[in-house]
């Protein structure tokens, strides 16, 4: 008798397990986006409002901007929200997206150990700050993963006229969070977006040492993907998402999002 019970229990366990792979027929889009938007909690705050308004679920795959482009290029995401304006414009020019729009911005900050060995605290510009780090050969943790932040950082080194390399310049090939963890562990300088930094808990000696330069401006854009390239995508739903982000409701939702008492993203759709 207990053999039968065991068999029944096994069968129901198997059934329960298999149920996870059953396709659901909810209306949803897959959004490829960046780790900063996901990890700061922005999506947790605004997605429920969008879903309530439209009955569309948004499934976020949070990766580096480079990988997000790749996912969209292969047709594996319905929509794209990233922060690399130059790359986004190229994406449109290549025909993968039909439209790009500013959604919001925040800024990058330069973070380092509290005692600031390179003395960037009183630098005039971010280029100046970067030059001082290079001169002092102070450890600098770079994401090195072709993300939006990484691309912005490389542009700043170029502007500072420094070819970063050598023992002090450490390319980690990781996301923003792991890079911050590593920087905290080795008292290195690091550039991060403000949203991830504010949401980050394992700071140890790290603090913001330089901020406020216009060059540190970090623009997020939403892209409408090409129907021609990937006809199978949920273009109608993605369009609704795109339009909601730019709408008054969407912009207000972004402005309302706060973490630890700080507004992290500033809506700027035209």
């Amino acid at each position, binding site marked *: 008798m207990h053999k039968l019970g065991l068999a029944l229990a096994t069968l129901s366990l198997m059934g329960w*397990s298999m149920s*996870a*792979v059953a*396709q659901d027929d909810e209306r949803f889009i*897959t959004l490829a986006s960046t780790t900063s938007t996901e990890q700061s909690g922005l999506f947790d705050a605004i997605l429920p409002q969008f879903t309530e308004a439209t009955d569309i679920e948004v*499934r976020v795959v949070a990766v580096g901007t480079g990988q997000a482009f790749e996912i969209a290029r*292969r*047709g594996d995401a319905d929509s794209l929200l990233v922060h690399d304006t130059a790359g986004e414009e190229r994406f449109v020019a290549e025909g993968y997206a039909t439209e790009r729009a500013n959604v919001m911005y925040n800024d990058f900050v330069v973070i380092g150990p509290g005692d600031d060995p390179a003395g960037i605290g009183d630098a005039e510009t971010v280029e100046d700050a970067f030059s001082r780090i290079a001169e002092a050969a102070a450890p600098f943790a770079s994401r090195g993963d072709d993300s939006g932040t990484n691309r912005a950082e490389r542009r700043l080194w170029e502007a500072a006229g420094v070819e970063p390399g050598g023992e002090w310049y450490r390319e980690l090939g990781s996301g*923003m*969070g792991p890079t911050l963890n590593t920087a905290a562990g080795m008292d290195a300088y690091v550039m991060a977006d403000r949203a991830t930094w504010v949401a980050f808990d394992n700071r140890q000696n790290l603090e913001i040492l330089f901020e406020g330069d216009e060059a540190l401006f970090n623009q997020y854009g939403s892209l409408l993907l090409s129907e021609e390239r990937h006809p199978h995508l949920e273009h109608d739903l993605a369009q609704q998402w795109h339009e909601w982000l730019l709408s008054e409701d969407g912009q207000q939702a972004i402005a309302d999002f706060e973490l630890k008492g700080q507004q992290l993203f500033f809506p700027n759709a035209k």
Partner: protein
Amino acid sequence: MTASDNAFSTALALILGLDDTLLGIVSLSLQVSLTAVLLAALVALPLGAALALWRFPGRSAIIVVLNAFMGLPPVVAGLTVYLLLSRAGPLGQFGLLFTPSAMVVAQVLLILPIIAALTRQQVEELHGEYREQLQSLGVSRLRRIPTLLWDARFGLLTVILAGFGRASAEVGAVMIVGGNIDGVTRVMTTAIVLETSKGNLPLALGLGLVLLALVTLINAGAYLVGETARRRLG
């Protein structure tokens, strides 16, 4: 403050709190890994037994490949499945990428070689003992497969648990093919990675402890069942 101080209390709070999100993550982890183990075992057990019973040209090559694939890096498995299931890939039209199904496929790829290779070893050993008797009874080779699998069942339970352990502990593959989507493809391990990258180390370690507790529980249960049966059946 160190992370480990808080991890235990965090883990305890997580378990006792029976948080809905956590429950969702835990049950998805179990569902995905159990399904993967089930599918992998359905193929790998007979495959391993067949490899133990038949001698044919290329057999050694298959065994070497299986053994090598036991060490397949999860990221490579994940990337392979990603390229297969991507819309631009050969199986793209099914739209499986970033779903639990994709994670199951990746985990099957990871554990099938383990179960098959270890099954071959165990069945070959048992067959050494049974060969003359089975031959005397006139049991065909095809028929020997279920016979030996059944008689090796306690050893194979451990093999399957090893597969389950690898499936539930791995992160590289499910991260790539699942996308760590909140509420859809977020499992224990990808949640741990996420919390680590947020710098929330106590929560990350707490989740790790929950995972460990879960795997321990399953192993203890299986061990208990196996030992009782082994003692009863000799």
